[in-house]
């Protein structure tokens, strides 16, 4: 980070650096990672800054070790984070299931690059939308993922990821991309007194009365989490557990556990729906995009508006759980929706199609990545679908 003495709390930095600062502001004091472009700048910033704030940062031997140690640190009471990109995220998914099952609050950052496999390491892609949602083995995934579109949001949403991970007691993804991660823009770091930080909730009952997992009231959030070593005898294993945390093979216990994991998210959509909506009131056509693609999409919307075409825009900020309700509302208003995204398999557009329930025609504008779409690409495609060509 370039040091700015002349202007307090203002920095011209990369999204990756903003993510590291957001984590520090949120209280993250344990970090484990393995280098990978385009996420390495997060690790580098953390490595430089953690000694100043009393954090522990470790470059582990690989991705598996890093996510598992983050899970361990979380169970021991630390706010913890790991970061990677596509090829590394696919490895971390093994540890992620463990985190989800044991309701461990921590944050995973995925700075997407052009894939599949190693792909184009230094360039942008948006191929991990489904990876973060469905990648962890065994299903029953209650994934929460937030996606920033600029540097300030990279900071703000990282703070939110930590807070949501504590409230929902689950790993939370920051799903960003190389363009957001590497773009430098102005970051204003708020005074700590202006930030809402959710601390780890501690039990108020003695160990004999405490249930580690609220399986008798599926969907419970804000449930306390005692640290390992505090005398609560908590059990954190990869096996299906009872409310006390003991391993079980019973069909009923299994169903109770996964019902809780899923309902933890689906029962609280009011707290997990966040979108940006622009000019939807009179819109006849819509664009939906997330992350780096949101910005050329909005530019295209402006251009269409100045040509007198009534176009509105929607951006999922919390992208998992998917904002079905706002997308459906948009679909009821407009005739056609264009979804620009940096993959050719139509990940976001498939979700939009599902949520639109046939109320509007949905069109995928894909690319293999490397570059974001230019505003003119989005505009031209919009004109093409409006004219029905």
């Amino acid at each position: 980070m370039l040091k700015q003495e002349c202007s307090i709390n203002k920095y011209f930095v990369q999204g990756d650096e903003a993510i590291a600062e957001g984590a520090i502001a949120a209280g993250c004091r344990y970090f484990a990672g393995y280098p990978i472009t385009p996420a390495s700048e997060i690790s580098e910033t953390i490595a430089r800054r953690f000694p100043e704030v009393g954090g522990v940062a470790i470059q582990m031997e690989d991705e598996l070790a890093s996510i598992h140690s983050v899970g361990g640190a979380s169970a021991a009471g630390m706010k913890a984070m790991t970061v990677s990109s596509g090829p590394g995220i696919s490895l971390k998914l093994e540890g992620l299931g463990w985190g989800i099952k044991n309701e461990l609050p921590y944050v995973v950052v995925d700075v997407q690059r052009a894939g599949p496999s190693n792909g184009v390491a230094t360039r942008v892609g948006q191929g991990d939308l489904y990876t973060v949602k469905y990648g962890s083995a065994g299903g029953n995934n209650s994934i929460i993922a937030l996606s920033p579109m600029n540097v300030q949001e990279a900071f703000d949403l990282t703070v939110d990821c930590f807070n949501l991970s504590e409230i929902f007691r689950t790993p939370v993804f920051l799903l960003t991309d190389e363009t957001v991660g590497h773009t430098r823009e102005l970051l204003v770091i708020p005074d700590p007194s202006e930030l809402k930080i959710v601390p780890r909730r501690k039990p108020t009952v003695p160990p004999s009365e405490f249930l580690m997992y609220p399986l008798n009231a599926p969907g419970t959030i804000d449930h306390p989490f005692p640290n390992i070593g505090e005398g609560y005898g908590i059990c954190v294993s990869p096996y299906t557990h009872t409310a006390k945390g003991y391993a079980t093979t019973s069909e009923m216990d299994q169903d109770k556990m996964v019902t809780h994991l899923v309902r933890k998210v689906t029962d609280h959509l009011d707290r997990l729906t966040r979108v940006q909506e622009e000019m939807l009131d009179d819109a006849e056509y819509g664009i939906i995009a997330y992350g780096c693609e949101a910005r050329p999409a909005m530019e295209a919307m402006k251009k269409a508006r100045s040509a007198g075409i009534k176009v509105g825009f929607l951006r999922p900020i919390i992208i998992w759980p998917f904002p079905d309700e706002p997308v459906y509302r948009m679909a009821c208003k407009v005739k056609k929706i264009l979804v620009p995204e940096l993959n050719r398999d139509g990940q976001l557009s498939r979700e939009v199609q599902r949520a639109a329930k046939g109320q509007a025609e949905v069109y995928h504008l894909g690319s293999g990545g490397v570059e974001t779409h230019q505003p003119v690409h989005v505009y031209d495609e919009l004109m093409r679908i409006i004219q029905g060509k």
Partner: protein
Amino acid sequence: MARTELRFAGFGGQGLLLAGIMLGTAATILDCKNAAQTQSYGTEARGGASQCNVVIDDEPITYVGVVNPDIFVCMSQEAYDKLIVDVRENGLVFYDSDLVKIKELPKTRQIPIPATKSAIDIVGRKIVANMVILGSVIESTGILDADLMKMCIRENVPKGTEEINLKAFDKGRELYREITGKA
């Protein structure tokens, strides 16, 4: 000011990325403008093609990319041959005249700046060629006040290198005036 798009291109190691970051930093932190800086680079640490794009605007910046730069700063032949076509009509090109051979382009003003050679001549270090060419850009376009730019350079270059960087920056301003007869 209206949206202005700049592209710096050359080889990794020439400091073009740093030049772009300085520009963005000065614009946002010291001049209260909006700026966004993006880059593209290969997997090599040094020597590969390197490109740094900066957008500066009084208005908030929606799209951060640079498609057709208003100002193109070019420090390698490869970059020139590949990227000159993108320059906006009536755009400005600053090129290192010892590294780049230009084509005739009637609608584009192309300004030769012997940045690398001057850097070696005045401070004995070609590493500050980026500041020479940045000085020329600032002198020519006035997109930022030269004193603000110098304040930013002083704050942000590695300790101990402030003077050579500032000297190189001023040399670039002077070169522009000499070359264009505005001395």
